[in-house]
């Protein structure tokens, strides 16, 4: 569930990327993602699924008109394209049903976009080099594979079964659909409009309590801050590596400085996450949301949150490091006309 909030936080840092299509289908117990459509005949599941599954994301769709501030996400239909079975759970299935996998392409694309130069910042040739590096490092499939393997190596079987029981339930599928829907680029403006209207139309105390508890049991604000700092640190480290030796900051010093940003960042992220949660789970009743919070607060729910977060951090962190290092090598900082956008705008004077 956290990916949607990480995506929104990263989206606030960077400009949306242009993106190609991503295809998804189920192959036996595995869910396959590709930028190429599946070949005929490879789709085999426990249940009939004769057609290739539809395209998951279409980020280049024009943004929707902003909605009224009080509007929350509308409940999308259940994910009919996902196979539910009583077979032993797999990590792939959990990541699919929970919405991690469907949301990942948008997330990695948004992060990658943060490394793109602003128009005019680099020559066309250098800009092309940077774009190539980003496309290579922020392909969602290898990042997903790294995450899946990471989770699979750490998850306990008993937790996996409990996770599956929850994520296979209709309520969990409804929630995943809401999260996936909110992670689409066209939802961003709706969420901003919704957050702006919160002062005028505050949530009920019970609902606020529920989303605060949701943030608490999942550590979403904290983890979103982690992810943002990982990206900032990777850029800072790469810039340092490319700097002349006599002006090169030491790695540990950079990490300490980045870490010093945490307290300030945490408060801002926490507020955003709460507003986003209020939007995303708006269509749920308090009882439904409470059931979700209860699952996430259970040992299996905690394990799910912790494992997916740690796996995401490692996979994205590695990709971010590789990207930043390769960009710094291909286009040394001196050739960047302005500060990298990932560092955010200059403070107002």
């Amino acid at each position, binding site marked *: 569930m956290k990916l949607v909030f990480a995506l929104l936080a990263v989206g606030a840092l960077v400009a949306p990327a242009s993106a190609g299509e991503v295809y998804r289908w189920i192959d036996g117990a595995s869910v396959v993602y590709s930028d190429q459509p599946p070949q005929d005949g490879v789709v085999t599941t426990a249940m009939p699924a004769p057609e290739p599954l539809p395209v998951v994301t279409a980020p280049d769709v024009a943004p929707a008109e902003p909605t009224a501030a009080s509007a929350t996400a509308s409940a999308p239909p259940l994910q009919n394209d996902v196979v539910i079975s009583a077979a032993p759970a797999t990590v792939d299935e959990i990541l699919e049903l929970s919405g991690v996998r469907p949301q990942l392409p948008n997330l990695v694309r948004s992060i990658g976009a943060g490394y793109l130069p602003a128009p005019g910042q680099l020559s066309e040739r250098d800009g092309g080099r940077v774009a190539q590096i980003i496309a290579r490092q922020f392909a969602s499939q290898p990042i997903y594979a790294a995450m899946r393997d990471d989770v699979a190596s750490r998850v306990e079987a008993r937790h996996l079964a409990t996770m599956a029981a929850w994520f296979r339930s209709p309520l969990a599928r409804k929630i995943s659909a809401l999260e996936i829907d909110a992670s689409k680029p066209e939802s961003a403006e709706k969420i901003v409009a919704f957050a702006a209207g919160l002062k005028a139309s505050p949530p009920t105390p019970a609902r606020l309590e529920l989303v605060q508890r949701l943030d608490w049991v999942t550590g979403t604000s*904290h983890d979103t801050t982690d992810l943002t700092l990982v990206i900032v640190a990777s850029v800072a480290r790469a810039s340092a590596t490319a700097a002349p030796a006599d002006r090169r900051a*030491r790695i540990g010093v950079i990490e300490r400085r980045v870490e010093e940003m945490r*307290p300030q960042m945490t408060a801002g992220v926490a507020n955003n996450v709460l507003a986003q949660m209020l939007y995303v789970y708006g269509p749920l009743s308090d009882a439904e949301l409470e059931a979700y919070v209860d699952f996430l607060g259970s040992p299996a729910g905690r394990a799910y949150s912790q494992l997916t*977060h740690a796996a995401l951090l490692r996979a994205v962190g590695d990709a971010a490091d590789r990207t930043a290092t390769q960009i710094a090598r291909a286009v040394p900082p001196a050739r960047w006309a302005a500060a990298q956008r990932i560092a955010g705008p200059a403070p107002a004077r």
Partner: protein
Amino acid sequence: MSGAARRRVTVASVAFLVCIGAVAARAQQRPAPLGESAAVLVERARAAYVQGRHQDALETARRAVEVAPRSIAAQLARGGMAEFMGEFDEAAQAYAQAQSLAPNDNAARYRMASFATRIGDYDRALRELDGILATQPTPAQLVFRWAPPFVQRPLLKRTPALEQLVELQIDIMMEKGDLTGARRLAYRHAIVEAGRDYCAEANQKKAGHGSSDDVFKAFRLAALAQPESADCIWWYGQWLTDEGYMRLGRLMVDEGTRVTGSAANKESGNRFVRIRLGGTRPVSKRAESLFMIAKQRYLRDDDADGAARLFDESLRLSPAFARPYSYKARLALDDGDREAAIRWLQRGVEADPDSWRTWHNLGRVLLAAQRWDEAERALTRAVELFPDDVGGQLALARALYARGDWDGYRTHTEHALGVARGVRGESVREPTEFLAKFQRWGAGAALPPTPDPRVILGWNQD
């Protein structure tokens, strides 16, 4: 005293201050019997020093000596910069060279006295200062030695060099442990005056958040003027401790502990010396000075290599001195080498198993490495040694939380918040909010925050 007598004293004083005033400035002012380029180099070194380009200043002073090895100004410039940078062998050589070139040169004498104090050669320092006084006309010497405080006060005020000399003498006596002699000197030369409550003034500055330097000076005067003011002497010792003056810090805290009438305070003072000042473990003055200069080179000049070399030398001289180990660990962390940092801190606690701060630092690095069990052991030791260690208690609480020991988390957090609330509540806002959520909803997914606030004077900076 009659008007005529007072005038004589004044005339003698003026003559005296002219002699002494020339001492400190002589290296810069005296026309050097050297080629233009050496004088220019000395001036350039001085400018580099003023601009904070310390390594440049030392290099330039070295070149000045190469150009004119018989120039006292060049030798003193080189000695001064080398001393400032912790290159003590080079400084000693330059000052000795300057003195051999001009055995009666008071500037060279004064610099040698100051340097000798820095490396703990107090007898040599006092001899040099006596030598300076002996070169003054007899009336001036008599005035300096015997004139009453109301004459001394304006004399010192108008003669910074003279005041500097007196202050150095006082420092030497304090560092030698002769507090009575230091106090006598301070009263005689009107550095402090009877009947004034320096202790109250110092406390006011402390409460009013005066600059660290102002607070330090105020407590120093209180320690000199009011031998019975146990708390102020103690605060002075704790300030010295934070700054890295292990030896004088130890003397002051010992003195405050001796003077206090409270048994609890005596116990607290003894514990402070044991867990914060190395107890009876020897720390040479030279090792202490190297450590303090290394800190400056690291923190002020960002000169990690130079600092590392001086920390190593400090440890070679005093292997049981715990504080350089923490800085060696910090340098390793700056290089991104957490394992090396842990090894340095482990060596630190082996060298001084009672060093609270080294255990605290070790625990926090282990915590960052998510080595929960080891972190718990190190931090448990830290808070056993110093239960009011807010940052240590919070860090221990995090280690326990990570291991699912919720009661342990709550106990240590509540203890830390209780200590901090009375001092600086704002510094623990996040842990307070985290605990409130924990108490409301049970354990959350994120680990508790672990700020390490500066709470009490005497327990910081390493």
